[in-house]
C-alpha cells in the first residue's frame, strides 16, 4: 500500500473536512481536499467565473445570494483539478461564485450518505453525490454533497477573461 493510500484510508475512517456554504435556502458541502482556495471576486476583477447556482439550475438561489439584492458577499471558490488535469492546474483552475457565509466542518464517515438509488438514477447533475447529516440531533440539518470533479467541463476549465 502506498503512503497516499494509507493517508486516504485514515481520512475515510476518521471522517472528512467539508466546506459548507448556502445557495438560497439550500446548504451545500464540498470536500475541502477538492478546494484550492477561496478568493474575493473583487480582488480578481479580470475573471468572470460562473455562478454555482446557475450550474445547478438554482436561479432563485442566485438572486438570493446576489450582493445587489441582499447585501451578502460573493466568494470565488477555486477547485483543485483531478490528477489527469494536473498539468493544467497552475494555469487553468476552475472557480465558481458562491455566497457567504462559508464554514469548515469535520464530519464523521457515517454522516455521509450516498444519494438514494432512485435519485441517483434520475439525477441530471452527476456532481450531486449525496447528502451530509450535519447534526445527530436535528434530522433536518442536511447538506447536499457536491463533487467538483464531476462539474461540467466548461465549468472546470479556465475562467473567462474579460476583455475591455
Amino acid at each position, binding site marked *: 500500500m502506498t503512503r497516499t493510500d494509507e493517508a486516504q484510508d485514515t481520512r475515510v475512517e476518521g471522517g472528512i473536512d467539508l466546506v459548507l456554504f448556502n445557495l438560497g435556502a439550500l446548504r451545500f458541502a464540498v470536500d475541502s481536499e477538492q478546494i484550492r482556495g477561496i478568493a474575493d471576486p473583487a480582488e480578481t476583477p479580470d475573471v468572470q467565473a460562473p455562478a454555482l447556482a446557475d450550474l445547478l439550475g*438554482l436561479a432563485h438561489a442566485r438572486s438570493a445570494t446576489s450582493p445587489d439584492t441582499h447585501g451578502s458577499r460573493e466568494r470565488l471558490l477555486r477547485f483543485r483539478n483531478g490528477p489527469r488535469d494536473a498539468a493544467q492546474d497552475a494555469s487553468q483552475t476552475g472557480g465558481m461564485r458562491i455566497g457567504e457565509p462559508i464554514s469548515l466542518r469535520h464530519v464523521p464517515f457515517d454522516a455521509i450518505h450516498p*444519494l*438514494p*438509488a*432512485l435519485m441517483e438514477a*434520475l*439525477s441530471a447533475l452527476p456532481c450531486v453525490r449525496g*447528502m451530509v447529516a450535519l447534526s445527530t440531533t436535528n434530522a*433536518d440539518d442536511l447538506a447536499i454533497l457536491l463533487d467538483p470533479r464531476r462539474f461540467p467541463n466548461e465549468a472546470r476549465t479556465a475562467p473567462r477573461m474579460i476583455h475591455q
Partner: protein
Amino acid sequence: MDLERTEPDAEPSERDTLDMILDRRREAGARILEVETAKVKLVIFVVGETPLALPARVLVEILPLTTIHFVPGCPPALEGVINVRGDIASVVRLGDLLGMTHAPSARRSAILLGQGTQVRSGLRVDRVVDVLDVTEESIQAPPDSLPEPLRGLATGVFEHQGQIVILLDLDRLFQTLLPEQR
C-alpha cells in the same frame, strides 16, 4: 315405552361423543374459514380525491409529513429527500406519477416508505385512510374504463366504505420513473 332416565354412569361417554362431534365441527369450520377468507393487508390512502391502496407488505413505514429537502437536478416528481432516523430516503410525489393533483400539504399528509423489488423510496400522499385486511376475492380486476396512466399501474379495485379503491403495484410505480425500464 321405556321413559326411564339414562343411567348416570352413561352420561360421561355421551358427553364425550358430543364433545368429539363438536370438536370435529369446530375444526372443520376453522379449516373452511381459513380457506374462504384468504386476506391481504392493505393501506388505503388518498391523493387528491382518489382513494388508492398499496399492499402493506411493500410498505416499510407510514411517516407523518416531515421536511422534504430539495435536491437539484432531479425530475419534478422526485420531490427531495428525508432523513428517517439517520437513513436518507427519496420522496416521490405520487400524484405526479398518476396524473393527479395533490391537495395542499396538511397535517394529515403522509409519506409511505415503500420497498420495491429494486428500489426503496417514500411516496407522498395526501391522507392515510385505513389499514385493513381485505379478502382477496373482493378485489376485482381493474376496469378498462380506468384512465392511463392509472390503468397500467393498477392491479385491482375493491369497495371500501362505499367508494371504489384502486389497488396499485409499487414496482410498476417506480418503473414509470426509470426510463431504461419502461
